[in-house]
């Protein structure tokens, strides 16, 4: 299971290494570590986000180990948006209310539009948009695509999906 954790470390040498130790001990597979040294909390601690895969039965052991070593666990849980997909839209993307198009995805609660790029060659010409949608799972990606297809049909936009999406 893929999980993420937000930690707060003391700003003293060796804390980051120490925070990773229980992942090794409990056979966690670390996917990414983001260390926000430049964004200290009002408490003077340094926020760190860790994404990892681990047997769920070990998560409490990891937490306990961290807390025993003075590391604050702010949040631990499933990484919400674990799936993502790229989609292109062609047509009057902006004038057909781009905000609404995005909101139709964002308002689901299980998916969000991240990363949007637009190309508008001329006033009367169709524009092209690239968007990346992140969602809580494969099924939710599939649902987001269905929503987008429906929006595309309503607003006369050509929706171009990636071939991998067909498998969902």
């Amino acid at each position, binding site marked *: 299971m893929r999980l993420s954790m937000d930690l707060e470390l003391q700003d003293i040498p060796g804390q980051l290494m120490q925070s990773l130790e229980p992942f090794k001990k409990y056979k966690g597979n670390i996917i990414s570590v983001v260390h926000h040294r430049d964004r200290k909390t009002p408490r003077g601690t340094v926020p760190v986000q860790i994404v990892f895969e681990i047997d769920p039965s070990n998560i409490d052991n990891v937490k306990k180990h961290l807390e025993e070593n003075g590391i604050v666990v702010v949040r631990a849980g499933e990484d919400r948006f674990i799936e993502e997909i*790229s*989609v*292109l839209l*062609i*047509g009057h993307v902006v004038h057909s209310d781009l905000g609404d198009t995005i909101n139709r995805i964002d308002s689901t609660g299980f998916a969000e539009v991240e990363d949007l*790029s637009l*190309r508008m*060659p001329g006033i009367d*010409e*169709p*524009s*092209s*948009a*690239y968007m990346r949608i992140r969602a809580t799972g494969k099924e939710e990606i599939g649902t987001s695509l269905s929503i987008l297809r429906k929006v595309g049909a309503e607003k006369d936009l*050509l929706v*171009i*999906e*990636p*071939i*991998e999406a*067909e498998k969902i």
Partner: protein
Amino acid sequence: MREVRISLVGFGIVGHGVLEVVRRKRELLKDMGLDLKVVSVTDINGTLFDEKGIDPQRLHGARTLEGIANLGIIGKEAIQEIDSDLVVEVTPTNIVHGQPGLGHIEEALSQGKHVVTSNKGPLVVAFNHLKELAQDNGVMLKYEATVGGTMPLISLIEKNLVGNEILSIRGIFNGTCNYILTRMMEEKYTYSYALTEAQELGIAEADPAYDVDGIDTAGKVVILANSIFGMDVKYDDVNVTGIRDITPEALNLAWERGYLIKLIGDVPTLTVKPMLVPRRSPLAVGGTLNVASIETDLSGTITVTGLGAGSIETASAIVSDVVSIYTSRQIDA
């Protein structure tokens, strides 16, 4: 030596190619124990018949049989009258009613003649009917050249992948669309400019609708669905979107994120639509190439690519079909 008397029905680009390939490969075919003899060529003007086999030199440079035909019979009548073992049907395709090819194939099969064709129309309109007709008359109907031109797809699945369950086939089945999209991406051409270039090069027809609106690809999807997946579907069952609305900006945005845009036909979902294909995918072939990925239960995914059209290329697929009819028969015996 097994003599095979062939009637060639249709004398266009592919018909010319068939005569040329049979001529070029005569010795090789004889080494395989086959003496392929084209005893008649028929087009709308009439039939040229020669019991000893037509010397291609007689037709050299001729675009039609006007002034060359020595019999006034055409179409079904020619198929009925002429004593042959096998009919190669290569008349122009019509995806709506399948004629005149449909009538020709029905007549040939009913007469107990094998049929090899590159003509999609009859198969899109009446695949299961024709397959049954062949079976009832104890003959074979082969159509490798209808999908992906020279690229081996149907025979690959029927022979080499036998025993596998085919889960899906998806790919680029139209070289014209692939050429236009490739040029738009590489040269930042607009759709209409790339189309004009393709027309000047003879890659696109004066009326490009058949290719660019995805009709041709949908026809191939129908043939694959009926022949490989045992479905019983018609052209109208396919959800089709063509490539007219694709912009160079969209291709560029896709490229920046690691994708190409290709017109993809998919079976069994029965869709034809432009899709994002990862640049490193085996489906990301350019120019006029065709490509198909076959997803199987035992062999994983197998991808084949090759030229989708062309006189000699299509004729090569036709001659392979002819040979396979007689070589598989030898194994039966």
